[in-house]
């Protein structure tokens, strides 16, 4: 156990209390929701499972793209010093900052059928509106900045000396990244991935604008509400939790269990 100052040096009551209070506050709506759910007459609405499939499959695809593109960007931002780095940081924050609806509109303007990008893509057979590609695009914009920012902080906290030592042991930079940097940054990377996953899965505003179809869970929730009323969202929301939570939890467990079981004290 690696115990810090607050746990060694003070009676733990205050910290525990504060922490558990804050946690309860965050969890309260879900507890209430569990309590209010009419478990007896819970049944999925037609199309709910399609929505689950759409969400999971395309979010995984988006996640893959995010990791592939975001990892080099994050590493680069962590290790390179150059003028205008602050500007870069601001730029990465932009998509995070933009309210989803506005982000959706921006994407619609850029990737829509008559825009330059959209028209070119369409000519190549890649429709960027109301298609799986558009859906994935929306999710990438929604989630990538979370991953990049978390991964960048994680990379920054890896001691460059360890990477250097690994080089002197004859590993190529790519092996060093795989064997040293990534494992040491795994906690932050896992956090980033988990955030990206939940953001992408839960994304509503952007998707609503540029990919009303295929309908993933968030849009389906919206449709169910309009169509059938509040009762129809209970089951889908529970299914959503069931589907979405395992990945982040697994990421958390794996990234932590990978830590060598260290100090026994």
């Amino acid at each position, binding site marked *: 156990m690696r115990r810090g100052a607050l746990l060694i040096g003070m009676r733990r009551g205050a910290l525990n209390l504060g922490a558990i209070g804050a946690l309860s506050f965050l969890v309260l709506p879900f507890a209430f929701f569990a309590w209010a759910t009419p478990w007896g007459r819970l049944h999925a609405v037609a199309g709910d499972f399609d929505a689950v499939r759409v969400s999971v499959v395309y979010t995984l695809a988006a996640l893959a793209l995010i990791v592939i593109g975001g990892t080099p960007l994050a590493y680069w931002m962590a290790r390179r010093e150059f003028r205008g780095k602050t500007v870069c940081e601001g730029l990465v924050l932009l998509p995070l900052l933009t309210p989803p609806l506005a982000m959706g509109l921006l994407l619609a303007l850029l990737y829509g059928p008559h825009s330059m990008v959209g028209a070119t893509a369409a000519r190549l057979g890649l429709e960027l509106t109301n298609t799986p590609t558009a859906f994935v695009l929306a999710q990438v914009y929604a989630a990538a900045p979370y991953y990049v920012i978390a991964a960048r902080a994680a990379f920054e906290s890896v*001691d460059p*000396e*360890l990477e*250097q*030592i*690994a*080089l*002197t*042991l*004859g*590993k*190529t*930079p790519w092996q*060093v990244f795989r*064997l*040293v940097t990534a*494992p*040491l940054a795994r906690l932050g990377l896992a956090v980033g991935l988990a955030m990206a996953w939940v953001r992408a899965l839960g994304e509503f505003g952007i998707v609503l604008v540029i990919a009303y179809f295929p309908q993933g869970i968030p849009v389906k929730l919206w449709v169910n509400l309009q169509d059938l009323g509040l009762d129809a969202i209970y089951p889908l929301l529970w299914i959503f939790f069931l589907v979405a939570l395992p990945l982040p939890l697994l990421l958390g467990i794996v990234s932590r269990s*990978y*830590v*060598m*079981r*260290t*100090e*026994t004290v």
Partner: protein
Amino acid sequence: MQIDYLIEAPVRLTARLRVEGFTVLLGASGAGKTTLLKALAGLLPATGTPYAQLAPQERPIGYLPQGCALFPHLSVWRNVAFGLRGRRRARRARALELLERVALGALADRAPQTLSGGQMQRVALARALVRNPALLLLDEPTNALDRATRAHVIGELRALIDQFGIPALVATHDTYLAALADSVAVLADGRVAQQGPPDEVFDRPATRAIAQLIGFENVVRADLVERAARLPESLKSPLDAGAAGRELGIAIRAHDLQLMRNGAAIEGAIALSATIKETRREGLATRIFLDGPMALEALSPSPCGDRGWQIGERVRVAVAPDRMRLVAWDG
């Protein structure tokens, strides 16, 4: 192996030395030993030969950094096996073999965070050895080890070096380690100020900085000594030569200074008068600090009580001419 490196930052260093067998790099704290080793490993920009054009991962070296820098996410044996390729079984076998040699076979599956300082250092050493490199760069490989463990580890290291003919450059403060070396290079004032076999370097330091580093407690300006005492001819002529060019100093080890009650006569040695300023017990011996024409430090082999030196007492200090060494005063 001839090394010829020029480093600009963080300190300017011109390093020109031979690494043969077990070569020790001595230097004061902050002289640039770590800097030189890092540059040789390719981790700092530098120009020179060998390797300077190679990327670090292409250099056939084994590097033990000063802080050990074990991989915290890998168990002890995996740290050692990190540089190896091939099947897990073979890698583990090789790692265990090296761990045995540093007497850590039993800890192979521990996490590095659970090791003591000395244990970490030995793991880092095993890791540096694992690839049979063409040059070993060891930064303070034994400073966390007790005498018995150190003797064992150095024995194994020597055996490896001799067996495979790998030259090793070892940065250290440990004069015990330096005494064992095939060659000692001294880093001072941004360059290798002297290199030679240990007995030569320890016996004939070239400069004041080197003399102090290797344990000559007293280095005094030659002109001061000249004024205070009669000097033998063997010293006089080089001193005169020095007077023409650069300044010289005279280095004397504390235990080569003999103290006598005032008035006692001494033959064949240089003597001057001084006052005892402070005495300090040092194990079985006593260190005596003297004031006089110059500040001096003497080491009396017997505990203080035996001779009963008093603080404030005036004494005669003598030194045999063959225990004095002439050194360059600056650089």
